[in-house]
């Protein structure tokens, strides 16, 4: 995941303040309204609004309702955030409380 930010082509959409230039399709897997799940949704929304305004979509999947979906994205931990677009697929597990590691995980800022 450290390398992939370099692989992106930042020229594609003009000067972006982040290295990610494509539309972000994010899927957040939760299991019921647990504190971690609630926190993850809130944390994710906050980060996206700040860094990805207008170019992201979040889909929340509650595995208690659709357990069969866990297999497709190989979900083990809850909550798990999956970056489905842009490629490559990335996963971040946890309640996303550590903003910096979320941004690194999503390639939203270069690795220092």
């Amino acid at each position: 995941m450290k390398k992939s930010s370099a692989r992106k082509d930042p020229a594609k959409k003009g000067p972006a303040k982040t290295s990610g230039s494509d539309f972000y399709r994010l899927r957040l897997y939760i299991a019921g309204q647990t504190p971690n799940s609630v926190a993850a949704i809130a944390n994710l929304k906050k980060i996206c609004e700040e860094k990805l305004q207008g170019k992201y979509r979040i889909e929340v999947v509650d595995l208690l309702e659709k357990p069969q979906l866990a297999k497709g994205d190989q979900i083990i931990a809850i909550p798990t955030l999956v970056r489905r677009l842009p490629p490559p697929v990335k996963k971040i597990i946890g309640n996303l409380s550590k903003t910096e590691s979320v941004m690194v995980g999503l390639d939203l800022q270069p690795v220092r």
Partner: protein
Amino acid sequence: MPRAKPEPKVARTSLPKSPTGIQGLDEITGGGLPKGRVTLVCGRAGCGKSLLGMEFLVHGAVRYGEPGVCIDFEETEEKLTANVASLGFDLRELTKRKKLFVDYVFIERNQIAESGEYNLDGLFIRLAHAVKTIKAKRILVDSVEALFSGLADSAILRSELRRLFRWLEDHKLTAIVTGEAGSGTLTRHGLEEYIADCVISLDHRVTEQISTRRLRIVKYRGTSHGTDEYPFLIGEEGISVVPITSLVLTHKALMDRVSTGIPALDEMMEGKGFFRGSSVLVTGTAGTGKSSLAANFTSAACARGELCLYFTFEESPSQILRNMRSVGLDLEQWVKKGLLHINAMRPTSTGLEGHLSVIHKLIAKLRPRVVVIDPITNLVSASGTYDVKSMLVRLVDFLKVEQITSMFTNLTFAGDPQERTAAAVSSLMDTWIVLRDSKPNGRPRRELYVLKSRGMAHSREPRELIASERGIELGMVLRDHSLETTVAGPSAVAAAE
């Protein structure tokens, strides 16, 4: 071996058991794994733990009406399908009929970043989904330690593992979890600390090209179990812990007698020959007629209409047929009638384990009344160790339980340590016939005597053995040897010569 046996009896006080269906394992555990509990199976890579787990599931699904879930962290469904096919079962078919459910859990650490707290609810949801889908009673988690390499927070992992094992028990699943052996610990991540009920350790050693696999029950709460290491085999039909009945010597001693195939030798043994179901060792230096003796014994059994299985490690079947013709034995007729099966194996082609596995399998398949192994020297050649002896103990036991009369030949060399093996093996044998060369007055001759034969008043006097195209005959009792040398065994005899 797959003879239909009654379910092993369970001691009154012990926990309910789930039979594994694995040959031998259910016997040494008194009926199988603890029902509704978690069993840890640990060992190094390639020790057979996944296979054991898979057999437990497949047998559960096919033979005991207990559907099973396989949560696999290592093998994809495709690979598992191939593995199960090698056991003779169709995983896809079993999956379709909802007897099995396979979920391959793939964790790619490079793909995963961590941010804040999490738990393994995703895994639990998958488990629950799988269990519910097929109403599973059994589950295999292979190998849960993959989580440790996939996820960084080992504090979370440990508490989640504890929760996992509790979850399995709450759902009344009979479970096998596997774990990789660590250095100095049973498992690399100390899984054994979480498992209270049953821990089985597998081991695979290769010494001097002979591979030996062993199984040990480290703990089994509420059950008396064998604490020995049990050798086990991985054959085409999967795992079998040989010996099925080594815990107790319960085989029935038959009073029936069978001819040795040589009237004069029968005569030396109360005129009746061997006991049926007994084991006979024939030792002798090169060229003393061990194979001829075995062939006579075989031929007599075939003539009685009994099926014989003849394992040879030195000659091809056609070579044996030709050689025996020269001493007046037509073995070919029995081969043609289907009464004699000659199985030739290269001693070096597989290890001891492989040979024994083939032997067991053929015996189970053909169900012979007589088995000849000619010679066991090759089987034991690479080592005279405890391993070999314990393997042979179990083979001999097995033959006795099946009431198969067996003959083993063993080549001895004067002063060779091989004789120690012969001596070690001989304690298992009911009858020990010694052949040897001697040169009294410069005239070479072959001699035979019965060193021991349990349960009968046999002759102890050496006779001359004469092999010609008329067959094997025994000459007069030889008086020119003192009794002490003959009774003392081949080492002393060799030394005396």
